[in-house]
Protein backbone atom coordinates (compact mmCIF):
# COMPACT_ATOMS: atom_id res chain seq x y z
CA UNK A 1 0.00 0.00 0.00
CA UNK A 2 2.70 2.48 1.00
CA UNK A 3 4.51 1.53 -2.19
CA UNK A 4 1.46 2.27 -4.26
CA UNK A 5 1.03 5.64 -2.56
CA UNK A 6 4.70 6.45 -3.14
CA UNK A 7 4.32 5.50 -6.79
CA UNK A 8 1.23 7.68 -7.20
CA UNK A 9 3.00 10.59 -5.50
CA UNK A 10 5.98 10.13 -7.79
CA UNK A 11 3.62 10.38 -10.76
CA UNK A 12 2.29 13.69 -9.46
CA UNK A 13 5.71 15.25 -8.85
CA UNK A 14 6.84 17.80 -11.44
CA UNK A 15 10.34 17.11 -12.74
CA UNK A 16 12.97 19.65 -11.72
CA UNK A 17 13.90 22.08 -14.46
CA UNK A 18 17.09 20.59 -15.80
CA UNK A 19 18.38 23.63 -17.61
CA UNK A 20 17.12 26.83 -16.12
CA UNK A 21 14.99 28.11 -13.29
CA UNK A 22 13.10 30.59 -15.47
CA UNK A 23 9.52 29.87 -16.53
CA UNK A 24 9.12 29.17 -20.27
CA UNK A 25 8.83 32.14 -22.63
CA UNK A 26 5.24 33.44 -22.91
CA UNK A 27 4.36 31.91 -26.30
CA UNK A 28 6.49 28.75 -26.01
CA UNK A 29 3.54 26.48 -25.17
CA UNK A 30 0.57 28.75 -25.79
CA UNK A 31 -1.33 28.85 -29.04
CA UNK A 32 -1.93 32.01 -31.03
CA UNK A 33 -5.63 33.00 -30.65
CA UNK A 34 -6.03 33.21 -34.44
CA UNK A 35 -6.16 29.57 -35.68
CA UNK A 36 -4.84 30.45 -39.15
CA UNK A 37 -1.75 32.08 -37.67
CA UNK A 38 -1.28 29.19 -35.23
CA UNK A 39 -1.41 26.77 -38.18
CA UNK A 40 1.30 28.75 -39.97
CA UNK A 41 3.47 28.91 -36.85
CA UNK A 42 2.97 25.21 -36.16
CA UNK A 43 3.90 24.23 -39.73
CA UNK A 44 7.08 26.30 -39.49
CA UNK A 45 8.01 24.95 -36.04
CA UNK A 46 7.70 21.38 -37.26
CA UNK A 47 10.35 22.03 -39.91
CA UNK A 48 12.86 23.90 -37.75
CA UNK A 49 15.48 21.75 -36.09
CA UNK A 50 16.17 22.05 -32.39
CA UNK A 51 19.74 23.17 -31.67
CA UNK A 52 19.95 21.35 -28.34
CA UNK A 53 18.37 18.00 -29.24
CA UNK A 54 19.52 17.82 -32.81
CA UNK A 55 17.20 15.06 -34.03
CA UNK A 56 14.00 16.80 -33.01
CA UNK A 57 12.05 19.70 -34.42
CA UNK A 58 11.50 22.62 -32.07
CA UNK A 59 7.80 21.67 -32.02
CA UNK A 60 8.70 18.34 -30.39
CA UNK A 61 11.60 19.35 -28.19
CA UNK A 62 11.38 20.15 -24.50
CA UNK A 63 14.71 22.03 -24.46
CA UNK A 64 14.43 25.56 -23.12
CA UNK A 65 16.09 27.00 -26.21
CA UNK A 66 13.47 25.28 -28.41
CA UNK A 67 10.79 26.89 -26.22
CA UNK A 68 12.39 30.29 -26.74
CA UNK A 69 12.47 29.69 -30.49
CA UNK A 70 8.79 28.63 -30.53
CA UNK A 71 7.87 31.75 -28.60
CA UNK A 72 9.87 33.96 -30.94
CA UNK A 73 8.30 32.33 -34.02
CA UNK A 74 4.76 32.82 -32.65
CA UNK A 75 5.49 36.44 -31.72
CA UNK A 76 6.89 37.17 -35.17
CA UNK A 77 3.94 35.50 -36.94
CA UNK A 78 1.55 37.54 -34.80
CA UNK A 79 3.50 40.65 -35.84
CA UNK A 80 2.68 39.72 -39.45
CA UNK A 81 5.97 38.20 -40.57
CA UNK A 82 5.80 35.48 -43.24
CA UNK A 83 6.92 31.96 -42.14
CA UNK A 84 9.37 31.68 -45.04
CA UNK A 85 10.99 34.99 -44.08
CA UNK A 86 11.51 33.67 -40.53
CA UNK A 87 12.99 30.45 -41.96
CA UNK A 88 15.41 32.46 -44.12
CA UNK A 89 16.35 34.57 -41.09
CA UNK A 90 17.17 31.43 -39.11
CA UNK A 91 19.09 29.92 -42.04
CA UNK A 92 21.17 33.11 -42.24
CA UNK A 93 22.19 32.43 -38.60
CA UNK A 94 22.57 28.67 -38.46
CA UNK A 95 22.85 27.57 -42.08
CA UNK A 96 20.60 25.18 -44.04
CA UNK A 97 21.11 22.72 -41.21
CA UNK A 98 18.44 24.41 -39.07
CA UNK A 99 15.64 23.74 -41.58
CA UNK A 100 14.18 20.31 -42.26
CA UNK A 101 12.67 21.60 -45.50
CA UNK A 102 14.93 20.51 -48.41
CA UNK A 103 16.19 23.44 -50.45
CA UNK A 104 16.96 23.71 -54.18
CA UNK A 105 20.70 24.13 -53.51
CA UNK A 106 22.99 22.35 -56.03
CA UNK A 107 24.08 19.83 -53.38
CA UNK A 108 20.50 18.48 -53.34
CA UNK A 109 20.05 18.22 -57.13
CA UNK A 110 20.86 14.46 -57.10
CA UNK A 111 18.12 14.04 -54.48
CA UNK A 112 15.53 15.79 -56.63
CA UNK A 113 16.76 13.94 -59.73
CA UNK A 114 16.67 10.50 -58.07
CA UNK A 115 12.92 9.79 -58.64
CA UNK A 116 13.20 10.73 -62.32
CA UNK A 117 16.31 8.58 -62.77
CA UNK A 118 14.67 5.61 -61.03
CA UNK A 119 11.55 6.03 -63.15
CA UNK A 120 13.67 6.12 -66.31
CA UNK A 121 15.53 2.99 -65.18
CA UNK A 122 12.22 1.25 -64.50
CA UNK A 123 10.88 2.13 -67.96
CA UNK A 124 14.09 0.86 -69.52
CA UNK A 125 13.80 -2.47 -67.70
CA UNK A 126 10.12 -2.69 -68.60
CA UNK A 127 10.88 -2.08 -72.25
CA UNK A 128 13.45 -4.88 -72.18
CA UNK A 129 10.89 -7.23 -70.64
CA UNK A 130 8.19 -6.36 -73.16
CA UNK A 131 10.58 -6.80 -76.05
CA UNK A 132 11.68 -10.17 -74.76
CA UNK A 133 8.06 -11.22 -74.11
CA UNK A 134 7.14 -10.50 -77.73
CA UNK A 135 9.78 -12.91 -79.05
CA UNK A 136 8.15 -16.32 -79.25
Amino acid sequence: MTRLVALLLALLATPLAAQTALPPAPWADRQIPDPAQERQARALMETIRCLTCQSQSIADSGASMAGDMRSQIRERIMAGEKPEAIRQWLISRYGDWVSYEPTAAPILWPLWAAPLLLLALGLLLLRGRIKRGKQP
Partner: protein
Amino acid sequence: MRRLFIWLPLMLLLAFVGLFASGLFRPDDRVIHSRLVGQPLPAFSLPAAASDRPPLASTQLATGKPRLLNIFASWCVPCAAEAPQLMALKQAGVEIDAIAIRDARPDVDRFLARYGNPYARIGLDARSAVQIALGSSGVPESFVIDGQGRIAYQHIGDIRADDVPMILDRLRDAQ
Protein backbone atom coordinates in the same frame (compact mmCIF):
# COMPACT_ATOMS: atom_id res chain seq x y z
CA MET B 1 26.78 -4.37 -70.98
CA ARG B 2 24.92 -7.32 -69.44
CA ARG B 3 28.04 -8.50 -67.68
CA LEU B 4 28.41 -5.07 -66.07
CA PHE B 5 24.84 -5.28 -64.77
CA ILE B 6 25.62 -8.54 -62.99
CA TRP B 7 28.29 -6.77 -60.94
CA LEU B 8 26.09 -3.79 -60.12
CA PRO B 9 24.48 -5.19 -56.93
CA LEU B 10 27.87 -6.17 -55.50
CA MET B 11 29.30 -2.73 -56.32
CA LEU B 12 26.30 -1.09 -54.62
CA LEU B 13 26.77 -3.30 -51.58
CA LEU B 14 30.46 -2.42 -51.36
CA ALA B 15 29.66 1.29 -51.75
CA PHE B 16 27.20 1.08 -48.84
CA VAL B 17 29.62 -0.89 -46.67
CA GLY B 18 32.27 1.76 -47.38
CA LEU B 19 29.82 4.54 -46.50
CA PHE B 20 28.84 2.94 -43.19
CA ALA B 21 32.46 2.11 -42.31
CA SER B 22 33.53 5.70 -42.89
CA GLY B 23 30.61 6.85 -40.69
CA LEU B 24 31.76 4.48 -37.96
CA PHE B 25 35.37 5.58 -37.94
CA ARG B 26 34.99 9.31 -38.51
CA PRO B 27 33.95 11.16 -35.35
CA ASP B 28 30.63 12.90 -35.78
CA ASP B 29 30.81 16.69 -35.81
CA ARG B 30 27.62 18.05 -34.30
CA VAL B 31 28.90 21.54 -33.64
CA ILE B 32 26.79 24.21 -35.33
CA HIS B 33 28.88 27.22 -36.30
CA SER B 34 27.31 30.63 -36.60
CA ARG B 35 26.94 31.93 -40.15
CA LEU B 36 27.57 35.45 -38.87
CA VAL B 37 31.35 35.03 -38.46
CA GLY B 38 32.91 37.80 -40.58
CA GLN B 39 29.73 39.85 -40.47
CA PRO B 40 28.65 42.75 -38.23
CA LEU B 41 27.03 41.93 -34.90
CA PRO B 42 23.22 42.06 -35.03
CA ALA B 43 21.90 45.15 -33.24
CA PHE B 44 20.64 44.55 -29.71
CA SER B 45 20.20 46.31 -26.41
CA LEU B 46 19.88 44.27 -23.24
CA PRO B 47 19.09 45.18 -19.62
CA ALA B 48 21.67 44.65 -16.87
CA ALA B 49 22.07 41.06 -15.71
CA ALA B 50 24.10 41.77 -12.57
CA SER B 51 23.67 44.33 -9.79
CA ASP B 52 27.14 45.83 -10.10
CA ARG B 53 27.68 45.81 -13.87
CA PRO B 54 26.15 48.08 -16.55
CA PRO B 55 23.82 46.69 -19.25
CA LEU B 56 25.06 45.80 -22.74
CA ALA B 57 24.16 47.11 -26.19
CA SER B 58 25.69 46.05 -29.53
CA THR B 59 26.97 49.61 -30.16
CA GLN B 60 29.20 49.33 -27.08
CA LEU B 61 31.05 46.44 -28.71
CA ALA B 62 32.41 48.52 -31.62
CA THR B 63 34.98 50.57 -29.76
CA GLY B 64 37.91 50.48 -32.21
CA LYS B 65 39.51 47.76 -30.09
CA PRO B 66 38.86 44.00 -30.21
CA ARG B 67 36.74 42.64 -27.39
CA LEU B 68 35.57 39.26 -26.23
CA LEU B 69 31.82 38.63 -25.95
CA ASN B 70 31.11 35.68 -23.66
CA ILE B 71 27.73 33.90 -23.72
CA PHE B 72 27.15 32.27 -20.34
CA ALA B 73 24.50 31.37 -17.78
CA SER B 74 24.54 30.90 -14.03
CA TRP B 75 22.85 27.49 -14.47
CA CYS B 76 25.53 26.22 -16.85
CA VAL B 77 28.22 23.98 -15.36
CA PRO B 78 30.91 24.35 -18.08
CA CYS B 79 30.55 28.14 -17.64
CA ALA B 80 31.83 27.77 -14.08
CA ALA B 81 34.72 25.64 -15.37
CA GLU B 82 35.54 28.39 -17.86
CA ALA B 83 35.73 31.17 -15.23
CA PRO B 84 39.47 30.88 -14.39
CA GLN B 85 40.39 31.11 -18.10
CA LEU B 86 38.26 34.25 -18.52
CA MET B 87 39.98 35.71 -15.46
CA ALA B 88 43.39 34.94 -17.02
CA LEU B 89 42.29 36.65 -20.26
CA LYS B 90 41.15 39.68 -18.29
CA GLN B 91 44.50 39.83 -16.53
CA ALA B 92 46.14 39.72 -19.97
CA GLY B 93 44.32 42.97 -20.73
CA VAL B 94 41.33 41.61 -22.68
CA GLU B 95 38.07 43.50 -22.30
CA ILE B 96 35.29 40.97 -21.84
CA ASP B 97 31.56 41.63 -22.04
CA ALA B 98 28.92 39.02 -21.45
CA ILE B 99 25.36 38.00 -22.21
CA ALA B 100 23.60 35.89 -19.58
CA ILE B 101 21.11 33.49 -21.18
CA ARG B 102 17.73 32.65 -19.56
CA ASP B 103 18.95 33.99 -16.27
CA ALA B 104 17.81 36.04 -13.30
CA ARG B 105 19.76 38.80 -11.57
CA PRO B 106 20.07 37.14 -8.10
CA ASP B 107 21.37 33.95 -9.75
CA VAL B 108 23.92 35.87 -11.83
CA ASP B 109 25.07 37.80 -8.73
CA ARG B 110 25.54 34.55 -6.83
CA PHE B 111 27.40 32.95 -9.75
CA LEU B 112 29.78 35.92 -10.10
CA ALA B 113 30.40 36.09 -6.34
CA ARG B 114 31.34 32.44 -6.38
CA TYR B 115 33.41 32.13 -9.58
CA GLY B 116 34.71 35.69 -10.06
CA ASN B 117 33.61 38.51 -12.33
CA PRO B 118 35.84 39.17 -15.35
CA TYR B 119 33.13 41.14 -17.19
CA ALA B 120 32.93 44.86 -17.97
CA ARG B 121 29.25 44.78 -18.98
CA ILE B 122 26.63 42.04 -18.72
CA GLY B 123 23.37 41.99 -20.66
CA LEU B 124 20.44 39.80 -19.68
CA ASP B 125 18.90 37.76 -22.52
CA ALA B 126 15.97 36.21 -20.69
CA ARG B 127 14.43 34.57 -23.79
CA SER B 128 17.55 33.65 -25.79
CA ALA B 129 16.51 36.22 -28.44
CA VAL B 130 20.00 37.71 -28.87
CA GLN B 131 21.54 34.25 -28.65
CA ILE B 132 19.41 33.12 -31.61
CA ALA B 133 20.16 36.35 -33.50
CA LEU B 134 23.88 35.63 -33.03
CA GLY B 135 23.57 32.11 -34.42
CA SER B 136 24.79 30.71 -31.12
CA SER B 137 23.47 27.28 -30.19
CA GLY B 138 24.45 26.87 -26.56
CA VAL B 139 26.37 28.04 -23.52
CA PRO B 140 29.18 28.78 -23.08
CA GLU B 141 30.28 30.37 -26.31
CA SER B 142 32.66 33.25 -26.91
CA PHE B 143 32.81 35.67 -29.82
CA VAL B 144 35.87 37.72 -30.73
CA ILE B 145 34.53 41.11 -31.89
CA ASP B 146 36.85 43.37 -33.88
CA GLY B 147 37.11 47.15 -33.47
CA GLN B 148 34.35 47.77 -36.07
CA GLY B 149 31.90 45.50 -34.31
CA ARG B 150 32.27 42.56 -36.69
CA ILE B 151 32.35 38.96 -35.46
CA ALA B 152 35.90 37.73 -36.10
CA TYR B 153 35.74 34.32 -34.43
CA GLN B 154 33.29 32.07 -32.59
CA HIS B 155 34.55 29.72 -29.88
CA ILE B 156 32.01 26.99 -29.11
CA GLY B 157 32.14 25.39 -25.68
CA ASP B 158 34.19 26.42 -22.68
CA ILE B 159 37.59 28.04 -23.12
CA ARG B 160 40.13 25.55 -21.74
CA ALA B 161 43.50 26.55 -20.31
CA ASP B 162 45.27 25.56 -23.54
CA ASP B 163 42.81 27.62 -25.63
CA VAL B 164 43.89 30.89 -23.95
CA PRO B 165 46.94 31.61 -26.21
CA MET B 166 44.81 30.90 -29.30
CA ILE B 167 42.10 33.31 -28.09
CA LEU B 168 44.76 35.97 -27.47
CA ASP B 169 46.07 35.40 -31.03
CA ARG B 170 42.55 35.76 -32.44
CA LEU B 171 42.08 39.01 -30.52
CA ARG B 172 45.39 40.33 -31.85
CA ASP B 173 44.42 39.33 -35.42
CA ALA B 174 41.08 41.13 -35.05
CA GLN B 175 42.88 44.43 -34.48
